[in-house]
């Protein structure tokens, strides 16, 4: 990535070593994951076949832990600034997402290691692609130029195009991968056209510069600029699986291997919201009316359609896919509301959602058998009696998704909705509250199956890695419900670098 950025600099600019070091420091967490990725590729070539999987997994976890360490350190220093001629930045917003994705990466590797062995799939390639996805997501959080935004977007998308079809023998997985590639390409085209039109109007790809130039009257009446914002909005809505650009979600979530689904459900969504906030809130405050209306409508539609469709699902993965659509609708309220409270609520929700949504998917890995995933609601029957700890944790995740106190999901919704009310989007919040009432029915239906008194059934596939990931998620989902101020404060700090309205 550094090379790409260097190439974009004009040749005559002198680039002293001290500057290079300073720039690299700003993106250290990203650079470190990139380095780990390259080392993993090397290790995969060198090591004997039976050692590769575990070795690469451990390397990936170690690399992500170091990256997380960097991010936490920068978070406390809090003096990050722009780098590489303003193409990326190391501000608190970027670092917030770097921490989020580093944690997510660790959880994904923990879950996928056991999963891939169980299914007999290629392992080291998978971890390398996971790391690539993480790099893309982190880049989206740190990007301050349309170019870097697109770079990150494609990096993460390409990683998912491949991993979605990782179950190479299964036709559903092939179908999912192909569909995701086609629709994803379609959406990328929208984003690219949108970017081109915005660039045309502003004459720069740097987000702060765009914001500055478009602030002047005269440009605003430009219909092409409005069109550009709409195209961008459509592409972004696709990435957060907002209605009506959501239809790939259930199919792809169902077809993709479980760890990928878990990864995508949380990671893509968080990265896409980072992108939305960077591009819309930071670069296009002058076009607020356009994107606000667009996102508000998408939010309302997502909450209604997502929650209604989830009621009739029988596959837990599909159910959670629709629930994810609805959840995206809730989070959009925070973006639409804007301001520090709104964006802080968004960041809170994304970080908390990471745990309870990822955990809900990750628990399903105990049902995995070599011949498939077995994720029907019926397969969950008696889980709570066969393995009470898992049952309790699944209950925590479902209740948190449904927004019951004192779990993280409750406060997530609370902060989002109160920001929405405060910003005057009452109709949107009314829809959101009604939709959450509907959502309780299907979240509780999952628990009904979990707590069906039935102890017979196929043996559960319980391994240390996934269970550790699930347990950490459950503990944090409870912790952020009991002590929400901890994360909400971080969310407010993370939102601070984005200029307020």
């Amino acid at each position, binding site marked *: 990535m550094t090379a790409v950025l260097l190439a974009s600099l004009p040749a005559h600019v002198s680039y002293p070593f001290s500057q290079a070091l300073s720039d690299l420091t700003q993106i250290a967490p990203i650079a470190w994951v990139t380095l780990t990725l390259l080392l993993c590729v090397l290790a995969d070539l060198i090591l004997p076949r039976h050692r590769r999987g575990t070795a690469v997994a451990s390397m990936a976890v170690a690399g992500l832990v170091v990256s997380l360490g960097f991010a936490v350190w920068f978070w406390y220093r809090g003096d990050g600034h722009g780098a590489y001629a303003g193409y990326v930045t190391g501000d608190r917003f970027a670092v917030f997402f770097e921490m989020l994705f580093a944690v997510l990466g660790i959880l994904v590797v923990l879950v996928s290691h056991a999963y891939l062995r169980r299914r007999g799939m290629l392992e080291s390639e998978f971890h390398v692609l996971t790391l690539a996805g993480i790099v893309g997501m982190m880049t989206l959080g740190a990007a301050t130029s349309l170019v870097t935004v697109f770079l990150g977007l494609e990096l993460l998308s390409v990683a998912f195009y491949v991993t979605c079809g990782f179950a190479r023998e299964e036709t559903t997985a092939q179908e999912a991968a192909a569909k995701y590639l*086609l629709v994803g390409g379609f959406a990328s085209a929208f984003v690219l056209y949108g970017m081109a039109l915005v660039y045309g109007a502003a004459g720069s790809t740097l987000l702060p510069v765009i914001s500055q130039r478009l602030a002047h009257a005269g440009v605003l009446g430009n219909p092409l600029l409005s069109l550009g914002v*709409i195209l961008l909005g*459509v592409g972004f809505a696709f990435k957060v699986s907002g209605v009506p650009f959501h239809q790939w979600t*259930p199919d792809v979530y169902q077809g993709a291997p479980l760890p990928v689904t878990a990864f995508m459900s949380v990671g893509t969504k968080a990265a896409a919201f980072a992108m939305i906030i960077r591009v819309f809130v930071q670069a296009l405050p002058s076009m607020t009316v*356009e994107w606000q209306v667009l996102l508000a409508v998408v939010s309302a539609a997502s909450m209604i359609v997502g929650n209604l469709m989830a009621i009739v699902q029988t596959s837990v993965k599909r159910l959670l896919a629709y629930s994810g659509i609805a959840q995206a609708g809730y989070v959009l309220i925070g973006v639409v509301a804007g301001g520090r409270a709104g964006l802080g609520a968004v960041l809170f929700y994304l970080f908390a959602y990471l745990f309870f949504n990822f955990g809900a998917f990750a628990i399903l890995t105990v049902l995995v058998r070599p011949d498939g995933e077995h994720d029907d609601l019926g397969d969950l029957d008696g889980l709570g009696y066969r393995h009470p700890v898992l049952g309790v944790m699944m209950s925590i995740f479902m209740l948190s998704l449904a927004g019951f106190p004192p779990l993280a999901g409750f406060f997530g919704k609370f902060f989002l909705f109160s920001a929405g009310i405060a910003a005057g989007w009452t109709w949107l919040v009314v829809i959101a509250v009604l939709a959450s009432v509907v959502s309780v029915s299907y979240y509780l239906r999952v628990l009904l199956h979990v707590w069906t008194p039935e102890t017979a059934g196929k043996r559960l596939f319980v391994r240390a890695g996934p269970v550790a990931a699930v347990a950490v998620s459950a503990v944090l989902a409870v912790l952020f419900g009991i002590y929400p*101020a901890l994360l909400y404060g971080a969310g407010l700090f993370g939102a601070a670098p984005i200029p307020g309205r």
Partner: protein
Amino acid sequence: MAQIALAVLLFPAAGAAVLGLGALRLPRRAVQVIGPGVVWASFLLVAYLFWHSLSHPQPLNLTYWTWVHSGSFQVPANIYLDRLAIFMGLVITGVGGLIITYALGYMEHESDASYARFFCYMDVFILSMLTLVLSGNFVFLIVGWAGVGLSSYLLIGFWYWRWTAVIAARKAFVMNVVGDIGMILGTFIIFVSFHQVTYTGVFAALPGHDTPALEAIAFLMLVGGVAKSAQLPLHTWLPDAMEGPTPVSALIHAATMVTAGVYLVGRLHPIYDVAHYAQDTVAAVGAVTALFAATIAIVQTDIKKVLAYSTMSQIGYMFLGVGVAAYAAAFFHLMSHAFFKALLFMSGGNVIHGMKDEQDMRRYGGLLRQMPATAICFLVGSLALAGIIPFVGFWSKDMILGAAFSKPAGQFPVSMWAIGFVTAILTGFYTGRMWWISFAGKPSPDRPVERPHEAQAVMLVPVVILAVLATVGGFIQMTALHVNVTLIENFLAPTVGRISWSGGALELEVTVATLILALAAFGLGYLIYVRRSLPVWSRALPFLQRLLEHKYYFDELYDAIFVQTMNLSARGGDTLLEEPVVEGTPEGVGSAASSSAGILALAQSGYFRTYALIFLGGALVALIVLVAVRA
């Protein structure tokens, strides 16, 4: 200090979690260690806090973290550790520990899973009760309040295969929720008036505050206290709650939870001291309930029902105490009642256990010979309940009555005292009746067990400990006979203050008269029920007996007013609304949702071309919306 106070809560929490999660797998031995063990661990910590508070009387407000911070609404997770909290903590964990230890033997016939479930619920109860008394703000007070309601519900319905137990549990829960609503509304008013919810903050803001608002708060809080403490008119659940296992009756429905209302008034005494109407209402409710319940207890034949009504009656005394601002006296009686009532329930439990779950005392008779230790312990408890010197009940009850008698505040306290005086005589009578019928005389021919055995050690030792406490516990506060030993009053003085008026003329004479009359009433039972030399009083007054046996028709009244009206309107709604409107239109709301999902699902065809088309359509709609907005 902060860590220790928190650990007091964490022990029962951990115990409940382990027992709850491991219910199916833990061996019985582990349950026997964990269940009571965590309560005793908490007891030791509270004992340390007690020892520490002897030299450091000032209250501690320990804030751990901010639980909610939203605009002006701020709830800290804090513990208000003053001497009242420590006093309650000692009673809860001390008496609680004894009762839970006793339950090890009482519940031995349960299956392993049931056994673990029982101790899990008991630990949940101890946790909730400790949360209730340790909380430093109104929000966590409600959390603990609701928690004890929940565990009471779970434990009353512990034998869920018994229909009557399920009904009783439901009744208790509904009644308690009525009270919870009062408390929550009261907390709302507190927040609206003071913009904060911590005790320290609210009490600091009290001086000069608008009295009508305080009256409203005090009355709403009283609704909660009345429901939890089974006072009139929200009392009907307590006798039915005796459907639960006897240790539950001893712990929750006698010693601790039902006294929460007294704690509440004591905790909020800065409000009640200003809100005079509410305070007088507290006293009146207490006095009337005391008399009311004592009259019903006279005709009960089920030994646990007698104890249940006596509990209501004794809590009435405590309400009377806090209602005349004699807080130390009320809390002294709370402690002494915990001792002797737990003692009565547990020794009564020994009898019930030995008699194969028979609770009708007319079928006992002459148990003194076969179960001497239990009979003596029960006698100690009975005498304490009847207020006979030197047992603990005498000192505490007469402290309340004395305080009411000599309070210089017009006719009101004296009239309250008069009711309490009559009740004391009735108490002597029904307690005596219970003891004589059960333990003296000849064995009843209807006995289910011919030769019952004395209870095993694990059930006898806690009973004996409580019997000792009920005998000597009163010597720490002997103001009733004007002896200057005032340990309880001294200990609680920094929190609730002393009783500000001194004993007046005639008080000592009145105390002695009460004692003699109660003792005479106790002995009267011997003449009526053992020697049978006096006629049974009810033969002469069949009308009164029927009134009392139907408990003044309260259940029938509530059934007619609430249950029947509800059923009637439900049935009306069913025929007028449900069938034509709700079911006539598309099969109810749920199916409406799934049928609209079915329509939406048409778009989810699985074909990429459909998706791309809808995608494009969405983009076009967005464009049109935008043009509309801009134009």
